[in-house]
């Protein structure tokens, strides 16, 4: 078959991204799957050992305890961000949508942090939460609540929450924007119709607005789920590779990185264990995200 000019064009446009996807996305996933079944000595691939790596990270101490610890933290992060980021985002979107005073300014203000790099946000919040001259503690002391001042990032009772707050501040604008877009699709006459029947904002939100923004909720929930279990940059910048203090901010992303590539306190790189972890994370995220998507899709309504 002879190529037409148009055919060449299409090929030229399709081949580079396809090659990119194959090389940098598909190949690493497949590679990680195969690596997970081998015994590794540093960068040297050893024997095929079946599911031994998986068994080790899931059931053998101390790996199993580390896995459990990191996984628990991921779940906490997911639940907390669901409330702080998506929950708050929904109500913020509602307030912006109802054109409360200052809505135009806040629409931009809320979204602005999303544009910032995670590195910048992490670094800034590390400064904000500094025990002595961080803005958090200075403010608390300034309003006479010095007793509440904490070394936020330095103690295991608050460190993970400090990271969660920083992440929520950073990304809050995203669900807000998606929910706002969903709300703006609701016809104004439908809102008028509800207003003829009730004046309760709560009824309007729970019975009409929430069900009608379901498509936005699907997107936002799935992305948050994936994000929460892939969480890496912010804890890496703010708490370091070891999830300090004492692993209280350790999450699967950090744990995987330490295991696979090694670290100051975690010793030699181990591609086998690391790949087994990566595969487990991937399978877990893919499976649950599919279930969430399918379940939520069923609730969606054509406006």
């Amino acid at each position, binding site marked *: 078959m002879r190529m037409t000019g148009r055919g060449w064009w299409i090929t030229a446009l399709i081949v580079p991204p396809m090659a990119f996807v194959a090389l940098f996305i598909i190949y690493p996933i497949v590679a990680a799957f195969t690596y997970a079944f081998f015994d590794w000595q540093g960068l040297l691939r050893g024997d095929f050992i079946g599911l031994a790596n998986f068994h080790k990270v899931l059931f053998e101490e101390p790996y199993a305890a580390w896995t459990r610890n990191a996984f628990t933290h991921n779940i906490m992060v997911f639940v907390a961000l669901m409330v702080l980021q998506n929950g708050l985002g929904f109500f913020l979107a509602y307030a912006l949508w109802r054109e409360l005073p200052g809505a135009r300014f806040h629409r931009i203000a809320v979204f602005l942090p999303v544009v910032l790099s995670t590195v910048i946000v992490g670094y800034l919040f590390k400064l904000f939460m500094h025990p002595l001259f961080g803005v958090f503690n200075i403010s608390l002391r300034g309003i006479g609540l010095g007793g509440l001042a904490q070394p936020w990032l330095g103690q295991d009772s608050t460190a993970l929450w400090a990271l969660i707050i920083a992440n929520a501040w950073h990304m809050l604008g995203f669900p807000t924007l998606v929910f706002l877009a969903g709300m703006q699709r609701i016809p104004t006459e439908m809102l*008028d119709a509800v*207003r003829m029947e009730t004046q309760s904002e709560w009824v309007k939100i729970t019975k009409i607005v929430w069900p009608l923004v379901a498509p936005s909720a699907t997107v936002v929930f799935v992305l948050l789920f994936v994000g929460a279990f892939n969480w890496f940059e912010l804890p890496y910048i703010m708490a370091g590779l070891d999830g300090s203090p004492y692993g209280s901010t350790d999450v699967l992303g950090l744990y995987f990185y330490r295991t696979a590539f090694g670290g100051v306190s975690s010793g030699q790189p181990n591609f086998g264990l690391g790949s087994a972890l990566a595969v487990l994370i991937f399978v877990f995220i893919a499976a649950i995200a599919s279930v969430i998507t399918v379940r939520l899709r069923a609730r969606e309504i054509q406006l």
Partner: protein
Amino acid sequence: MARLSLRGIKKSFKTANVLHGIDLDIGDREFVVFVGPSGCGKSTLLRLIAGLDPITEGEFVLNDQRMNDVPPSKRGIAMVFQSYALYPHMDVYENMAFGARLMGLTKPEVEARIAEAARMLRLEPLLKRYPRELSGGQRQRVAIGRALVRKPEVFLLDEPLSNLDAALRSEVRLEIARLHRQIGGTMIYVTHDQVEAMTLADRIVVMNLGRIEQVGAPRELYETPANTFVAGFIGSPKMALVNVQKTSDGITFAGGDTLALPRLPAMGDGPLKIGVRPDAWSLSRDLASPGIAASVVYTEYLGENAFVYTRLTDGTLVGVRTTPNELYEPDESVRLSVDPVAIHYFSAEDGRRLPA
């Protein structure tokens, strides 16, 4: 019982004044239609009555109670929207039950009301369907049902037929008329379609540019329009409005043709506007006959009759109803004559009706 009283209602959005002082009383069980061209303020007025927008100035009283600051859901008013505004995530039953439950009715009461409304609107087989599974006419009936279930004192209908095709429109129109007789509530209906207004209304409120031009029964508006706006708005094809000069015993047209008239408004000689409906003109090909010179623009053939549009020498377009066997060609010269008793007289300055 529902008596509405609008007193000096004004509405402005930021700097734009939309309504300039509306005074209107609506009686119990009355079917009132607000009609006017787009942008005349009729839908705005309806939204003020509903409470969806705040009243800038003036007072809205329902059954001796001032309503200005009462929220929409507490006014005892239900509204049917142009787009029907059904809740897409609820089936027909739930759409109707939603408002009823919020009124604090018990479950059996809600069920009884829905059963009644469903029977009246023939919705029984559709109760478990979702709005997206319904046709336009069915959605319309559900929207009306949703209003019925609340048993409001006043029904507001905002252009409820404009999203339906022509055949369905006349069917639903009859349905609404029947419903009004059956339930006897006060209904306020907004439309830009004068046929809907004429067929449904006990009284029509003709609005233009944020003011009421005339309020009256359909026949009253048709037979004695208060001004040139109402004269031109009610009736299709439009009443022809012709500028003439009044003389001592008749009128003179711009082209010099004269018409002797036994009955004229009491005023000095001078400019005057006459209005004549298409059925009061007649056409003649005999150019020597008395009458007014005109030339044919085009002819509309409608089956049982035809409308011939002609142009007078001063450019005024005049529609004439004829029988379908006299068809006229464009540019043909004709003579128009007019039935003197069917002439409406209006002031040339402000367009007000002048009694003759």
